[in-house]
């Protein structure tokens, strides 16, 4: 297969990304595979909450519309394949919902895979009893009594479940938590037949996966050298064209906005990484440190020299736990001494909260427009006569935060002059879901893979 190349486009970098991007890539990307990455660190805890209320839910509901949107591309001799982690906390429920759409579109024979096994919550007590500590990844703190507040616990699976699903002729693969790069590594291993200890090529494919996993951040979004000529309104979503030797070309569909250049791609390579020589995934410890980029053609960047070393013995686990309550609200403060007035208004809120009997655990005040988004730094500080006063707080008591939600509106009549813009509904309290990264030995986890036709999923 040495001359073959594999085109993979990523049409979502998080749940809430551009709704039209999957169709843009499916219709104009000349893709072999479309990937959709939906799961930020805490997305699964939200989905866990939904599943607790309704066992049929807990997956990324947008997927149902996406599959309807791209269904014309799912027909034919070389149909598009879709790989996504949008199965969330319920890949099987997701497979059923997606299958319903497929059957409605006349695609009853399309094979759909549910890849699960990442949800550790049902096994947590058993694993703790067996000696797993689930201590904090960064600081080694023990889990302790947080156990009783855990909402979700998911291990990052690698690409093997995806590859296994593809080997069973799945055309749509719906997973729970997998490493983001697995959405690319999985099809690459399947198509090129790489072995699971080919660290160099697994590392190279991981680089490609990392470059496209955040969607338009590789194609001009968030780019430091922004200019209006980038035409972000029509921005193209990224495509990685992988070759058997592990090199890849990053591009985007023709006649779309944005830019694929050494500049945009290099910024994405360094996005959210730690040690570039040790980018941990379940499949390989990728090495980004010697990657080279070349402008191969207009809007095409050649990526070379990604590599890797042996996969880690442990797998990362994301735990989400309940940690009190929070709220955020804002009002507008205008006129002379606006910043001083805004801080005085925030101080008045604190005094009134104290009078009501609440000293909040954490209270944060920012004067947006006066350069206060980076606390303790003077970079963008300036005098402004028009400020958004943003107040945000966190407390272990719901009633304390509930009370704070009542304290912004009174500033309109009992605050300094120039307070305006408080016209919406009252702000609301919401629970805080905190994040606890930890790890477990890889041998105690296996992916479960179920592949059926759409028709079969519905019976």
């Amino acid at each position, binding site marked *: 297969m040495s001359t073959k190349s594999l085109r993979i486009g990523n049409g979502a970098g998080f749940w809430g990304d551009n709704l039209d991007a999957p169709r843009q890539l499916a219709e104009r990307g000349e893709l072999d595979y479309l990937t959709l990455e939906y799961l930020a660190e805490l997305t699964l805890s939200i989905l866990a909450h939904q599943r607790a209320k309704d066992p049929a839910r807990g997956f990324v509901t947008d997927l149902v519309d996406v599959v309807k949107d791209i269904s014309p591309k799912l027909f034919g001799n070389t149909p598009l394949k879709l790989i996504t982690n949008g199965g969330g906390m319920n890949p099987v429920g997701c497979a059923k919902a997606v299958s319903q759409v497929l059957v409605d579109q006349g695609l009853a024979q399309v094979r759909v895979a549910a890849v699960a096994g990442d949800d550790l919550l049902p096994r947590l007590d058993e694993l703790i009893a067996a000696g797993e500590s689930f201590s904090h990844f960064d600081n080694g703190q023990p889990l302790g009594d947080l156990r009783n507040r855990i909402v979700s616990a998911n291990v990052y699976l690698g690409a093997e479940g995806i590859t296994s699903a593809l080997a069973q002729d799945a055309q749509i693969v719906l997973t729970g938590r997998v490493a983001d790069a697995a959405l690319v590594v999985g099809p690459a291993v399947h198509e090129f037949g790489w072995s699971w200890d080919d660290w160099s090529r697994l590392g190279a494919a991981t680089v490609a996966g990392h470059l496209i996993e955040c969607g338009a951040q590789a194609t001009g979004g968030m780019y430091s050298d922004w200019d209006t000529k980038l035409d972000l309104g029509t921005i193209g979503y990224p495509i990685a064209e992988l070759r058997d030797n592990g090199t890849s070309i990053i591009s985007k569909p023709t006649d779309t906005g944005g830019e694929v250049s050494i500049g945009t791609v290099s910024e994405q390579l360094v996005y959210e990484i730690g*040690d570039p020589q040790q980018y941990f995934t379940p499949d390989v410890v990728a090495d980004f440190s010697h990657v080279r980029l070349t402008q191969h053609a207009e809007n095409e960047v050649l990526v070379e020299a990604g590599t890797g070393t042996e996969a880690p013995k442990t797998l990362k686990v994301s735990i989400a736990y309940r940690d009190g309550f929070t709220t955020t609200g804002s009002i507008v403060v205008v006129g002379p001494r606006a910043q001083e007035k805004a801080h005085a208004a925030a101080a008045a809120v604190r005094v009134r909260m104290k009078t009501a009997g609440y000293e909040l655990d954490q*209270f944060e005040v920012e004067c947006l427009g006066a350069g206060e*988004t*980076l606390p303790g730094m003077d970079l963008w500080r300036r005098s402004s006569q028009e400020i958004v006063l943003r107040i945000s707080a966190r407390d272990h008591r719901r009633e304390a935060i509930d009370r704070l939600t009542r304290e912004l509106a009174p500033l309109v009549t009992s605050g300094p002059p120039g307070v305006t813009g408080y016209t919406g509904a009252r702000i609301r309290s919401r629970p805080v879901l905190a994040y606890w990264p930890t790890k477990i030995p890889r041998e105690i986890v296996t992916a479960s893979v179920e592949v059926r036709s759409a028709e079969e999923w519905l019976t």
Partner: protein
Amino acid sequence: MSNMIRLGEIAHARSGDKGGHANVGVVAYNSAGYEYLCSVLTEQEVGKFFAGLGPTQVQRFELPGIYALNFLLHDALEGGASLSLRTDSQGKLLGLAILEMEIPRPKDLKLMLNEN
């Protein structure tokens, strides 16, 4: 002529979160700029620049193939995206911020500028 320049004249940048840590990747426009960055952007200088965010440790890593340095600012996000009350809870602004850093004007500045 000032004897200082903005870092943004010879580099671009991107930042984000790694749990409670923030990362700031700084990419020089060419090899001359990269060599200069390696000498002036020390862990100490970057730590000083972001001192207001209270990082407990700053680590620097090198990506010579793309002329980039990556900085990991430990515990700079007030507990990270899930706990931080800041507008910029994920550290997205830090890349833009570091480009405002003032560094000594290099003798061969012309060789380090963006050619595009």
